[in-house]
């Protein structure tokens, strides 16, 4: 047991019997990566309570982890620290109890060095013979002190418990995966829960708009004319101004495309971190994560988060939780800012360069390349290939209502690449000319399916029937642990009013809401099965679609 390595054997037996009291929490300061969860387990163990199923599961996994960590930590300072407590433990016991209150709020990095680093008030070494006699009184004092710490800990308790539930998950990643919840707007209980959560975070609830087609009635559908900022106060105090700006840019479509959204999100988080000050009696590692939660809910209300954004947020939260508590605020902030810069540099900029390098090998002279919509990565690849003097021409396929292909067309023609522009309805007409299809992806799912702009699966299907190779380009940070086989379960509904067109002053669909049997559907994403995709080009190399779960597993092990 971990505890044995810290508490000297002489005391161990005594400690067990006396402290196994059902009414007292016993908190041992243990050296751990995850703050607090070990305390939880040891506490409930000592209480002799019935452990709940989750706690039992956690315990089992703890043991597995401990075995792993024991090997890793042998060279750490724990051994030295073990030695010091062994010789000095008797006098620091009373010191340790006084230190316990301050240590509990920071269990992450308050290992037994607390007695080692604490100023020793008492003389170094009373005789070990006194120890058993002293221990009872000491233990009572210790118990009392621990009760007080627990009472004091009740205030940051909510934040620490939040961390507790999070950390076991990331540590137990190989076994238990937390999947993103499905949006269930047609279930009133879920909607009520969401409304309560938003109310707690002081974020206004955005109401759905218009009639939803029945197959997609479980998804949110918002109107662009009713922005969330209508319900916020104008100098926004609850939400940081750069997050409000970001939410507006998302909902109006000014920042669109999963790479752009992630970069913008990280940029906004940088501003938030810069303006953040730790409130007194709080820890940066816990409080900052809690500050970010309402912002993330707000952004989710403005526009549902993309998979790449979700991964970026997970990364940031992990980085923040891993900030050691003795780190000064300025240092912690600069550390986080450099982490963010590094993430963007590695996962987006350098990944794009690597993908271009692989993809250019696949582009030969005389190629006719078909692209769909405006994928920043594919545009990047084509521009780089053109600069490396490959001779090819591009066919840009576009679709309503977004008509993003126009922007892709502009960027390619600006570089000098010769392009053709068609709408998706002309796809089978143009495909006999095409030699390769390059597609971008919004996310790659764990079962190998490609989630991308609606229309991509059509292109892949028709290309397959024409025997044209389909290459999907996607950075690894967009790989997602979701599993989906159809486009219904989890998707995004855009503003249905976008489908209205005004030609010669007349808008035919102007009063579509009055027609009871008419529903407008503006889907954003669809999923392409891996059978239609020949190759996925990632920054790790060129892999088949079915290797995505392998990459995910490797990534998780690395983390």
């Amino acid at each position, binding site marked *: 047991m971990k505890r044995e390595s810290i508490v000297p054997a002489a005391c161990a037996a005594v400690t067990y019997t006396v402290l196994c009291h059902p009414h007292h929490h016993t908190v041992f300061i243990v050296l751990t990566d995850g703050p607090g969860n070990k305390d939880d387990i040891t506490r409930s163990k000592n209480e002799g309570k019935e452990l709940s199923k989750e706690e039992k599961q956690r315990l089992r996994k703890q043991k597995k982890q401990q075995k792993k960590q024991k090997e890793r930590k042998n060279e750490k300072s724990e051994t030295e620290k073990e030695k010091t407590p062994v010789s000095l433990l008797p006098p620091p016991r009373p010191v340790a109890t006084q230190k316990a209150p301050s240590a509990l709020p920071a269990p992450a990095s308050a290992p037994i060095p607390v007695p080692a680093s604490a100023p020793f008030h008492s003389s170094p070494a009373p005789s070990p013979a006194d120890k058993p006699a002293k221990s009872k009184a000491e233990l009572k004092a210790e118990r009392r002190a621990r009760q007080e710490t627990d009472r004091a800990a009740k205030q940051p308790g909510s934040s620490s418990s939040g961390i507790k539930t999070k950390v076991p998950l990331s540590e137990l990643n190989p076994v238990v995966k937390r999947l993103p919840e499905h949006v269930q707007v047609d279930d009133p209980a879920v909607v009520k829960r969401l409304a309560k959560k938003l109310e707690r975070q002081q974020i206004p609830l955005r109401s759905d708009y218009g009639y939803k087609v029945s197959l997609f009635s479980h998804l949110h559908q918002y109107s662009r004319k009713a922005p969330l*900022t209508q319900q916020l106060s104008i*100098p926004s105090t609850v939400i940081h101004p750069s997050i409000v700006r970001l939410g507006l840019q998302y909902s109006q479509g000014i920042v669109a*495309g999963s790479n752009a959204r992630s*970069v913008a999100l990280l940029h906004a988080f940088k501003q938030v971190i810069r303006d953040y000050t730790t409130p007194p009696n709080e820890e940066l590692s816990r409080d900052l994560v809690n500050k970010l939660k309402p912002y993330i809910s707000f952004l989710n209300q403005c526009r549902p988060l993309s998979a790449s954004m979700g991964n970026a947020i997970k990364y940031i939260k992990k980085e923040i939780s891993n900030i050691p508590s003795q780190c000064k605020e300025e240092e912690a902030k600069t550390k986080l800012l450099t982490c963010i810069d590094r993430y963007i540099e590695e996962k987006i900029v350098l990944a794009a360069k690597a993908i271009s390098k692989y993809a250019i090998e696949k582009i030969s002279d005389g190629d006719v390349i078909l692209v769909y919509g405006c994928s920043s990565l594919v545009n990047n690849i084509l521009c780089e290939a053109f600069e490396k003097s490959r001779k090819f021409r591009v066919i840009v396929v576009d679709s309503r209502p977004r008509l993003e292909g126009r922007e892709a067309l502009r960027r390619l023609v600006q570089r000098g690449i010769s392009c053709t522009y068609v709408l998706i309805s002309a796809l089978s007409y143009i495909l006999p000319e095409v030699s390769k299809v390059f597609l971008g992806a919004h996310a790659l799912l764990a079962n190998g399916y490609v989630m991308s702009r609606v229309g991509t699966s059509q292109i892949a299907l028709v290309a397959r029937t024409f025997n044209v190779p389909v290459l999907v380009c996607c950075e690894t940070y967009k790989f997602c642990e979701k599993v989906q086989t159809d486009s219904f379960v989890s998707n995004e509904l855009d503003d249905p009013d976008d489908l209205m067109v005004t030609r010669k002053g007349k808008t035919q669909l102007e009063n579509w809401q009055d027609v009871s049997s008419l529903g407008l559907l503006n889907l954003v994403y669809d999923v392409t099965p891996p059978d239609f995709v020949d190759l996925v080009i990632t920054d790790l190399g060129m892999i088949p679609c079915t290797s995505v779960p392998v990459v995910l597993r490797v990534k998780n092990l690395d983390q």
Partner: protein
Amino acid sequence: MELQAVLMAAGGGSRMMDLTYNTPKPLLPVGNKPLIWYPLNLLERVGFEEVIVITTKEVQKMISTDPKVKLDVKMKLDLVCIQEDADMGTADALRHIQQKVKTDVLVVSCDLITDAALHEVVDLFRAHNATLSMLMSKAHEFTETVPGQKGKKKTGEQRDFVGVDDTGKRLLFMANEADLDEGVVIRKSIMRKHPRMHIKTGLVDAHLYCLKKSVVDFLADNKSISSIRGELVPYLVRKQFSKSTNSPKVIDETHQNLKKNDSNVNLEIQISSRDEELLHLTQERSCWNDHRGDMSDAYHGGRLRCYVHIMDEGICYRVNTLAAYIEANRLAPKLFDEPAVHPSAVVSERCLIGADSIIGASCQISDKTSIKRSTIGVSTTVREKVKVTNSIIMHGVTIEEGCNIQGSVICSNAVIGRGADIKYCLVGSAQRIEPDGEHTTMSKACSA
């Protein structure tokens, strides 16, 4: 903090001297509330908690001492006084408080009465990272006859030409007829970037501006600009399309030469922000463009952008002329839902008070009076058999029996003698109308 509100309440009301020679413009009663209450109420409704109010010493004194001037706002007001005779323009006032300005500002004029949704203006400012965002409204004709003026006065005011792009949000061109010699001159660079421009003339400028902090700093360095509406806004609108704002090379040089006095340069240094590369990367990767049809990037690569929100419906008035003042009094009760008749007013039972009249506090309305479409101020005494129609009676006025007041404005502390018949007149402050006098379309004000 995102935005700081600045309320400009130092104006003189030069276009309605009859009313303002005694009462300063911010404290003129409109619907029995001081004029300055309306923009303050707007800011408070929207969620501001602090406002910097730039005003004169006289106004500040009256606000703090006069019980009739109750401001009733929960926000914290930071009153900054400037000298009345200093002849400061709005931009000068902004320069005066430059030290207090820590973030972007929302500048409001004290004579604005509107129920506009401010988030529309501020959303444009936020979403496009604009330098200037303003509010305008379609002008409504004033239908009431203005007392003291014979016949409909032709507006001697000159037209404003406002050019917006196809979406109706981006401000491309702004000029006043007074500044144009022969015709409207539009630069080719604007036409090349925005081939479709809509030029509107019937718009009322609400004088509500969202300005970036860099503009305030720029004002501090350029002391030649003295009015926001007259000089700063046209300058910013012109600068959107000037060459120096757009070429990145110039910006690099300016970063090196910090001691340049050129006004163009200063604005550029201040516009660029930290994390410029990340913003640039975002824009590069985003598949959005604000225009289509040509080869340039979003916003044509320009870093200075001006936006305008044009209101189609809703109330938006600037009370700077007598006609506007009367119109505002007519519409003001729609903006707040206090009862028309103040509970402390003593209204006798046999008088007829129309539904759209407002009776102020501590009034005394006697029998057999008829009050239609009028506003009666605080502590006014109206004796028997008085007919008041379509008029504005300010505070502390005494109207003796048998008077007939129609379409007029009676200023504070005036006394209307018995049996007087007043039609379309403007009676100045503390004036006396002799009994049985008959006055039509006249302006009786004291030459102080």
